Structure formats: C-alpha cells, structure tokens
C-alpha cells in the first residue's frame, strides 16, 4: 500500500522488562477507520503514542514507523500538524476555560486568529458545545469533556484522527452522538485510528481491526468478515451452570463448541435450529440465543481469563 497513511513494520517497544509492543506490523489506508483492540496493557495506547512521538520505539530490532511518509522520530512536527489526538485521559487545561483551551491550541497549531475563531465556533457547534464556550473545565460533564477533547483534536483540520478509547465511561446517547460525528468525518475523507474496549464500537465504526495480545498481533481484518469467518454464527448463552450440562448433553457431537466460565456456559454453533431446540427445553429467563458478535471473536482470539497486565 504505497499511499497508506500509517505504516508499522516490525515495531518493538519495551519498558524495562515488559515488551509493550512486540513486532507489530500493520497499515492504515486513507479515509478508513482502523481499530486497535486488546485487553488493558495489550499495547494499544503505546502504539498510538509511537505515532506522534509521545513514545519512542526500540532501536533493536530495527522497525519502521511511517506516518504520511514521515518517521515520527525525525519529523514529529510534520506528523503532528496533520494529526489530531484524543488521548485516553482528558488532559484539558484546567487553568483555562473552554474557549481559551481551544484558542491556545489554535495558537499551538499556528492558526491565524480569524481562521481559529471561525473554526472554533464551527466545531463547538458540530460537537454541540456552543453554550459551554465560557464554561470552566471543571463544570463540564464527562461527556462534554470528551467532546471538547475531540473538538481540540479537530481544530487544525487534521487528515488523521487518533482516538484512544474515545467513549469509555460515557452514556449511550453521547456514545452514539460521537459515533455519528466520526462517521461523518470519515465520509469527508478523514483517516481514523482508534482503540476501544467496546466491540460494538469497533464493529460500528471500523473498516479494519487489529486484535493485539501482549504486544503481538493475533487477528486482523474487517470486523464483519471476522465475525463471518472466525466464529460460529450463533451462540446460546446460559447463566445457570447447573442445568446447562444436562441440556447440552442432548446435542449431537460436533454441533456446538462449548465455552465455560465460573457462572456461565456458552454453546457456539452454526445450526440455529439445534441450539433453538436446546433453548426451548430450558426454563425461561436465564438463557439467550443470539447471533455471534465481534466480542465473541475477541474473546475466542484472546482467551477469557485475565492475565497479569490487566
């Protein structure tokens, strides 16, 4: 992909003894949304930091990072002036109000005053924050702060938007609003790189996802295709572990793949009717037959148990 916006080629990043990024390679095409999925500590945020030199990759083994054709460790400013970053923490300037926060950033981007004023008004309107222009940062709700950080990231009309868990901790209304705004931006040509723990979010927004585990890539592809190709289409979830084994005993061997945790049993299969027949025999209220989702793919790829980094 010659015109890829982001290229990672065998990139490594270590912190003391921990390998945060362990030989990651991927490419992000222009005007697409690319999602990085993985547990806490899997290396998602580190990958994002490597893009705008908030972190520096290991010298050995040699890896390559290219963003708009620039190496962040040589031309960080070229990359930053084309990108907007929404970090995981809302690191807004609490010593300034909403409008001043944005004006300071417009200055940092070297925007002329008149263009900055127009752009700030336009974006506050776009993110539905117009009434809050003179508010103090501490007066804002979590959702408003998040939207303000997105406004800040969009100030300089970036070609690349980097979002680290953009909707974590937000209510469904705000989340759906943000999704719509991001879709609109992508339609207009913006390239988006995002991390999320919400598989629904990745499924809704991303053209491509990369699932990471302990700094290594485990699965990559279009989320719809991943669901179609990497998991049985249906799952019967049972939250009564006492009745589940008996119910599943009547299934023909090979009909379902069973995953069990302490308090739940899931039977994955492609034969909907067979799973339906089991479900019908169970008492109602603590089972659910549904199509498989990206979350099922994710759990299958990365395992259900917790690891030390979480």
């Amino acid at each position, binding site marked *: 992909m010659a015109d890829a916006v982001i290229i990672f080629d065998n990139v490594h990043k270590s912190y003391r003894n921990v390998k945060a990024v362990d030989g990651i390679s991927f490419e992000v095409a222009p005007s697409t949304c690319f999602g990085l999925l993985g547990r806490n500590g899997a290396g998602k945020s580190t990958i994002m930091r490597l893009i705008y030199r908030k*972190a520096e990759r290991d010298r050995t083994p040699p890896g390559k990072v290219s963003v708009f054709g620039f190496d962040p460790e040589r031309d960080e400013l070229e990359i930053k002036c084309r990108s907007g970053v929404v970090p995981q923490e809302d690191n807004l*300037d609490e*010593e*300034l109000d909403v409008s001043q926060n944005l004006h*300071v950033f417009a200055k*940092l981007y*070297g925007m002329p005053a008149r263009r900055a004023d127009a752009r700030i008004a336009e974006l506050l309107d776009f993110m539905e924050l117009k009434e809050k222009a003179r508010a103090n940062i501490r007066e804002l709700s979590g959702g408003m702060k998040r939207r303000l950080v997105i406004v800040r990231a969009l100030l300089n*009309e970036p070609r690349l938007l980097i979002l680290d868990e953009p909707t974590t901790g937000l209510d469904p209304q705000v989340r759906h609003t943000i999704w719509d705004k991001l879709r*609109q931006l992508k339609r207009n040509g*913006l390239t988006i790189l995002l991390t999320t723990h919400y598989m629904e979010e990745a499924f809704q927004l991303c053209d491509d996802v990369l699932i990471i585990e302990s700094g290594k890539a485990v699965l990559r592809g279009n989320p719809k295709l991943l669901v179609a190709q990497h998991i049985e289409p249906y799952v019967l979830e049972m939250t009564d572990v006492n009745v589940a084994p008996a119910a599943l005993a009547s299934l023909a061997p090979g009909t379902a793949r069973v995953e069990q945790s302490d308090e739940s049993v899931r039977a994955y299969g492609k034969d909907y009717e067979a799973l339906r027949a089991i479900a019908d025999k169970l008492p109602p209220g603590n089972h659910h037959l549904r199509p498989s989702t990206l979350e099922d793919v994710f759990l299958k790829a990365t395992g259900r148990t917790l690891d030390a980094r979480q």
Partner: protein
Amino acid sequence: MPVSELQPHPPSLGARLYSIWYRHMRVYTRNLISNGLPPFMEPVIFLLGIGLGLGRYIAAMDGLSYLVFLATALPVTSAMFTASYECTFATFVRLEFQKAYDGMVAAPVTVADLFVGELLWAGSKGFFFSGCVVLVMALFGALPLPAGLLAMPIGFLAGTTFGAISLLVTSYVRNINHFNFYFTGFLSPMFFFSGTFFPLDSLPRGLRPLAEILPLTHAVRLTRSLALSRFSPVLIADLAFLVIVTLLAGYLAIRRLRARIVV
C-alpha cells in the same frame, strides 16, 4: 466539514515558543487582580518593615543608605522567587496532576519547545516582577530613574536562570512536598547570603568564594551596579555566569523532563 486540501506545515520555532508563552500569559492574566497585586504589595511591605524600620538603625552600608542598598537588590530577588514558584509547583502540577504537557505535545511542538517557552515566560514574569519593585522603590525615592529600569532586563535574565534551575529540580521531584527542601534549603539561604541585605565583605573570608557560586550574588551585583551606574568589567563575568548557568541547567532540565513526558 471536508478534510483540508491545504498542504499543512508546522509552525516556525518562533511561533511555537510564542504559543507556549501565550498559554502561560493567558493563565496568568485570567486572575489579574490576585496575580497582579502581590508583586506591588511585597516591596511596599518590605520597605516599611525592613527598610524604614530596621534601616533607621543602620547608618550606611557599602557607602549607600540602607534603603538604597536594599532597593537595588530586591527587584531581582522578586524575579527569583516568582520564576522559582512558576517552574517548581506550577510546572509539577501541569506535569503530574493536570497532564497538561501530555495534551500540548500532541500539537506540533516538541518537548524542548515546551520548556524553552516556559523559561521565556519565567523570564517575562521576572521582568514584570522586578519592574513592579523598581516602580515602588522609585516612588519611595530609593532607586534612581531611569537607571533603575535596568533592573528589569536583569530581572528577565534572573527569571530564566532560576526558572532553569527550578525546572532541573522539578525533573528530580516525584512528590510535590519535596520542593520545600529546595525553597528552605537553597533559595532562602541564597536570599540572605547573596549581598542582598549586607555586603559580601561582611561574610567570613572563607565563605566569600561560596557566595560567588550562588547565582543570586551575580544577579544582585549586576542590578545594583547598573541601577547606580557603577560600571566595571566584573559585570561581564556576572552576566556570563548567569547565562552559562541558565543554558546548562536548562539543557539538563529539558533532557530529564523529556524522559518523563516521552515514554
């Protein structure tokens, strides 16, 4: 909102440093009264308390009335304290509690820009604070004008010097309370033993070279000499000392702070 077709380019170094400086200026001027009044109040209190009260018992010091002796040192001590607060507590809060620097480095600025801009701001505060002291002292007739105004550029330089030293201290500090060691262990003694309240000749002979290591000594000598139009070649050495300390401490501070921001 279509993606811009303009070929973006990063701002120039001057524009980047100015934008950092602008950020600090906006924060400072947001509370104009609470931030702008103390720099005038402090010298007034000092003059009333020490200059007029204590000064009555002191005939002359170094051939000067005690009031003038004090007035020619205080502008630069004021610059020292304001720059030191700015680059310790305020910097630490931005670094550790607010994570403001993490936000700012996502914009097209480098970590070095961030702290050079901050030092220019510390210098500007030094300029302003020493200016306030000059004004008050001149009103009391303790400082001749316009020569006294030369204290202001020295205040700027001292602001960057103590800003740089303070940033270096901040780069080592993990707990905000540890700044107390710096203030009571370094800045306060320096405040007293740099020719501010009594001439260095009054120090025991063995301690005099020690006083020459203190940056404030050089800043005070520069201010006093310039304000009283007593020029001598020693002043060039004083100037060089301050510049070298600023560059050295600034360089080390930026290197160390960079390691805390770029991980």
